[in-house]
């Protein structure tokens, strides 16, 4: 479970997240929606401390994952990022072979045994329904795959380090509708095992796959509730305006 209390984030002078309080439940899909620049990607990058890479970022408040404060001063950053994996907007596969892409994570975690690595790679590819399609092609360059398969591969690459939480930052925005549908199916399948937080511009997507939805505006979390509630009977007028397409 992810829990934030009075979370504030500043980029230098810019107040990017304002007093965000939310609870994300385990093993469900939570979608964050809102217009561009509302801070939903920033919020996502709080959960694996990716914002630390940007200079001038300051955070106040608490972020707990499974009751552990992830912003403690002596926290193991790499262990956190292993536990909280991230899928990016563009399917950024490494210019390496398919096998080496998936085995990269386990390798940096010290697994060198070839049989173990093969097993991990196979299981991870199986987890994203790629194993059969790519049988015997694992030595091929990952960049030769279609965009959709590349994005699946990126997810497989994450699964290989056995995360608990999957953060997805508009994972389908570079894909066509058919590929998007396949990735969505995959996400629904994956929620049995993982806690998934997805940031999306696509409200239909949020409605289709998410169990809970958070609506953000100008750095504030306006509303957070069950998907059906948000889309049929939102409590806040701003949410209602946004989902009915009156702005954003």
């Amino acid at each position, binding site marked *: 479970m992810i829990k934030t209390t009075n979370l504030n984030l500043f980029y230098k002078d810019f107040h990017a997240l304002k007093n965000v309080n939310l609870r994300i439940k385990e093993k469900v899909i939570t979608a964050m929606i809102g217009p561009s620049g509302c801070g939903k990607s920033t919020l996502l990058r709080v959960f*694996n401390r990716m914002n630390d890479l940007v200079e001038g970022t300051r955070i106040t408040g608490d972020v707990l994952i499974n009751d552990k404060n992830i912003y403690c001063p002596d926290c193991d950053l790499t262990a956190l*990022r*292993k536990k909280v994996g991230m899928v990016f907007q563009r399917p950024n596969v*490494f*210019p390496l072979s398919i096998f080496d892409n998936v085995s*990269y*994570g386990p390798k*940096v975690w010290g697994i060198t045994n070839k049989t173990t690595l093969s097993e991990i790679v196979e299981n991870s590819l199986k987890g994203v329904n790629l194993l059969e399609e790519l049988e015997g092609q694992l030595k091929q360059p990952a960049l030769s795959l279609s965009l959709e398969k590349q994005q699946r591969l*990126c997810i497989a690459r994450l699964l290989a*380090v056995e995360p608990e939480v999957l953060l997805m930052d508009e994972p389908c925005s570079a894909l066509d509708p058919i590929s998007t549908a396949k990735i969505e199916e995959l996400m629904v399948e994956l929620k049995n095992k993982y806690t998934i937080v997805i940031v999306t511009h696509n409200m239909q997507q949020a409605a289709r796959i998410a169990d809970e939805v958070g609506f953000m505006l100008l750095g504030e979390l306006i509303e957070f509730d069950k998907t059906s509630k948000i889309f049929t009977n939102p409590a806040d007028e701003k949410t209602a305006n946004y989902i009915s397409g009156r702005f954003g």
Partner: protein
Amino acid sequence: MFKIKPKTTQVIAYSVLLALTVITIAVLVFIILFIFKNGIRELSWSFLTQPTKEMGKEGGILPSIVGTLLVTLFSIIIATPIGVGSAIYLTEYTKGGAIRRIISFGADCLAGMPSIIFGLFGFIFFVIMLKMGWSILSGGLTLAIMILPTIIRTSEEAIKSVPNAYREISYSLGGGKLDTIIKIVLPTALPGILTGVILGIGRAISETAAVIFTAGSSLNMPTSLFSSTRTLAVHFYILAREGISMPKAYGTATVLIIIILLINFIAYRLMHKFISKYY
């Protein structure tokens, strides 16, 4: 007033650019053909494998071939790790800022410095102060300093062009900074880094002024890193300058050009093999 049709402008632009390209290639081809025409008849097995006799008027150029390769190899072995290391430091560890700009500016200045200045420095510092004498060691170290800026700058550009997303993904998988650099950033930047190294080899192998001061001009076969040697470029220079033998001078130049072409050819083949593997 008359108006030029857009199509005519296109044709003119195309022709001018084509002409400029042809001029560039033509100059290159002319130089190479000119040297080859004068030097090719000197080429023979004995020219390549015999020691030099009578100051170069007779015999072959084997000691100079060996000397050239040793000096160049030594300089590359020294300069590549230092250059790539600095480039990594500059791009991955300094966050932009003043230090990086100052070092980059310094590297650019060094790259534009006349090579004879490096020669003089090498002579005073390595040959005299450190008592290395005229030797492959002094020559190699001097050349290493000379080509360092080239390697740093090209490696820096290559590393900077690695998409930041790769680094983020590596971190997001729990990779540390060093894992990310060694396993992701460097392999991705390798073709660019290699280009810098090739440029460095080209500069080092054909250098005259910097090595004549530091490696000397001995015609003996080098026996160790402390032997003085006369590189092909220096040999060519002395043969021509002192009027010892123009045919032998052209022969030497031909061999030097062939060696450079060979090194470039092999390096580019290696690079393509690497690139085509994953792209």
